[in-house]
């Protein structure tokens, strides 16, 4: 007699915990063939606000951690993800070989970004030779709380937008791919077991069109990454809302996006501020 599997309840990931949506809502997630896979939580405005509160609370600690420490934790995330390789491959809605390759690429991307934690300042900061007796140095600092709308690619796309944001010290609230949110929640389990402080990454599943505008308008969010928004009207509305407190906005990336390409620095630098410190020279 075959054994009946114990299924996982896919919940949200807020402040390091896995709550259900306060709204009590869920939505059915299906495979590309239309087979039922699971019910995912359908996050509400209140969940989004809770997530922003968690991200803000985590910001001083995470941005104040040493770059080395953040790099270590991201590398640990890669290790934990490697350990879930088989499980995640089953949640991507791809053929087995393609799915494994995609998880591998996500692991490798994390390793790549982990190394940037203590190097981005060396390539994006400057020593400025001003015309006067002053020490003058410009260094990158994290922007703050970043709201992200993840692209359709459920794991590699997600990792490719989250890793560059947090490696530099930002905290984030990410809206997972609406049709394929399961890998995002499993990835949250990876984060929860990687010594990443609670609240650094918060994952919401649900309707993009419902959640993104609340995050875009939220006055305690500093930046907005609209990468995964496919509806031009929604993107326009979000960018307009973002003007309310002058959020830094990364506009949508047209699908199909190639997440295997070299990411470059822009996903990190778009969510960095440059701070310039002056001090007189003298004895």
């Amino acid at each position, binding site marked *: 007699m075959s054994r009946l599997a114990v299924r996982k309840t896919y919940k949200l990931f807020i402040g390091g915990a896995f709550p259900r949506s306060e709204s009590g809502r869920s939505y059915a997630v299906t495979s590309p063939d239309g087979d039922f896979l699971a019910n995912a939580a359908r996050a509400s405005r209140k969940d989004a606000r809770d997530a922003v509160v968690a991200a803000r609370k985590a910001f001083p600690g995470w941005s104040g951690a040493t770059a080395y420490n953040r790099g270590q934790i991201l590398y640990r995330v890669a290790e934990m993800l490697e350990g879930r390789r088989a499980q995640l491959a089953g949640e991507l809605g791809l053929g087995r070989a393609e799915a494994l390759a995609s998880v591998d690429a996500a692991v490798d991307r994390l390793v790549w970004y982990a190394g940037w934690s203590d190097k981005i300042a060396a*390539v994006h900061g*400057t020593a*400025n*030779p*001003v*015309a*006067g007796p*002053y020490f*003058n140095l*410009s260094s990158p600092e994290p*922007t*703050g709380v970043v709201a992200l709308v993840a692209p359709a690619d459920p794991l590699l796309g997600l990792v490719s937008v989250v890793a560059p944001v947090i490696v530099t010290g930002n905290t984030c609230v990410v809206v997972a791919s609406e049709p394929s949110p399961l890998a995002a929640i499993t990835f949250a389990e990876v984060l929860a077991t990687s010594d990443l402080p609670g609240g650094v990454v918060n994952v919401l599943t649900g309707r993009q069109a419902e959640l993104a505008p609340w995050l875009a308008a939220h006055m305690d969010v*500093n930046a907005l990454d609209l990468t995964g928004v496919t509806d*031009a009207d929604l*993107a*326009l509305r979000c*960018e*307009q809302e*973002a*003007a*309310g*407190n*002058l959020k*830094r*906005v990364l*506009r949508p990336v047209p699908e199909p996006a190639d997440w295997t390409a070299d990411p470059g*620095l*822009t996903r990190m*630098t778009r969510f960095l*501020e*440059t*701070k*310039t*410190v*002056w*001090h*007189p020279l003298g004895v």
Partner: protein
Amino acid sequence: MFEYAPAPESREIVDLRPSYGLFIDGEFTEGSGPAFKTVNPATEETLAEVACASADDVDRAVRAARKAFGGWSGLPGSERAKYLFRIARIIQERARELAVLESLDNGKPIRESRDVDLPLVAAHFFYYAGWADKLQYAGFGTKPLGVAGQVIPWNFPLLMLAWKVAPALACGNTVVLKPAETTPLTALLFAEISRQAELPPGVVNIVTGAGETGAAVVAHPEVDKVAFTGSTEVGRLIARTVAGTGKKVTLELGGKAANIVFDDAPIDQAVEGIVNGIFFNQGHVCCAGSRLLVQESVQEELLAALKRRLGTLRLGDPLDKNTDIGAINSAEQLARIRSLSEAGESEGAERWSPACELPERGFWFPPTLFTGVAQSHTIAREEIFGPVLSVLTFRTPAEAVEKANNTPYGLSAGVWTEKGSRILWMAERLRAGVVWANTFNKFDPASPFGGYKESGYGREGGLHGLEAYLDV
């Protein structure tokens, strides 16, 4: 206070024309909007009549810039560099003329226009001239964006033009620039300078006018890049306007900087820094140190020294070389400073100004400080953009950080202490784009400038300033 005989700079060096047109495609042309007058804020005398660009005029300017873009961006960087070097040299050659004109149109003391604005303007063109043929080493690629629409404020008219135009041209963009309505004259003289430099027609176009003209520049569909310096309120409108387009935007907006003085700070130096922080350029400075945070234990000593120093500031004729504080730029700005200062009094802060005679004509406001200011007071929250300092106190470094960051702005901050580790500890925690430690209001083309939070985004100056004008 010593008595000085008046030492006015001659205005003979400036050859003012009765009226000025728009500068489009290398020519001065008529504007189709209603011409407006620009006045000397120190005397209310009309200096000249200036054309107003309508949306159609802006369209003409953008088309000229578009037409010029191919040729300009196609030039080797080394050739663009030489044009910018030429411009920088002509600015140096005509520096006194530009400084006098700036002081006439803006009201700032000649000492500042001559010794701060103009040297920085020339230096900015020199700095970015040198980048034009070295872009491949900067890390942002070498592809320009296209036509840059630039809208600048009235507080540093020519310097803000330099901050906008120099990096844009170095990177291969062409420009449509709108100067502020109350200070268009040095931009129009710059147009003449660009002709002396034989800059190809259409590379720089200057459209004068008020908010509507600026809005037309920002909204024009053929503009690829919007750069704005001004109020946070207008910055928000611009961010909304460009939403959903492909336009790249940089915004340098308001501020409410904290200037933090610890009990071990050298008091005399700190007083000079506080004065420079808030009374430089009549406080018409987005990064002005408008909130003085003083450690409670030295409050009395510091305020006594500060008040003594304010008693020696000379307010009056901007063209007098002894003048420290010039005229407020416009009647409108004066009304705003007055109303915010009245709010300071009515909300319970204590107002103080030195004995200070104000000229009868023109727009003037005495150096003013408010003590007993709470964080909730309007004068501790809103940008006054005038010679008005709000004084607050703190006990611990953590409280200083908390109060300094308690603002939606994040443009600049100042720290005064003799303890090096405390400076770095503070500098790390202050959420501001520029931190001046034991100094204030220093600027240099090699040093990036720009804000956190609602003070805007993007940097001007330095290597970082190139990013704003390249297709990264």
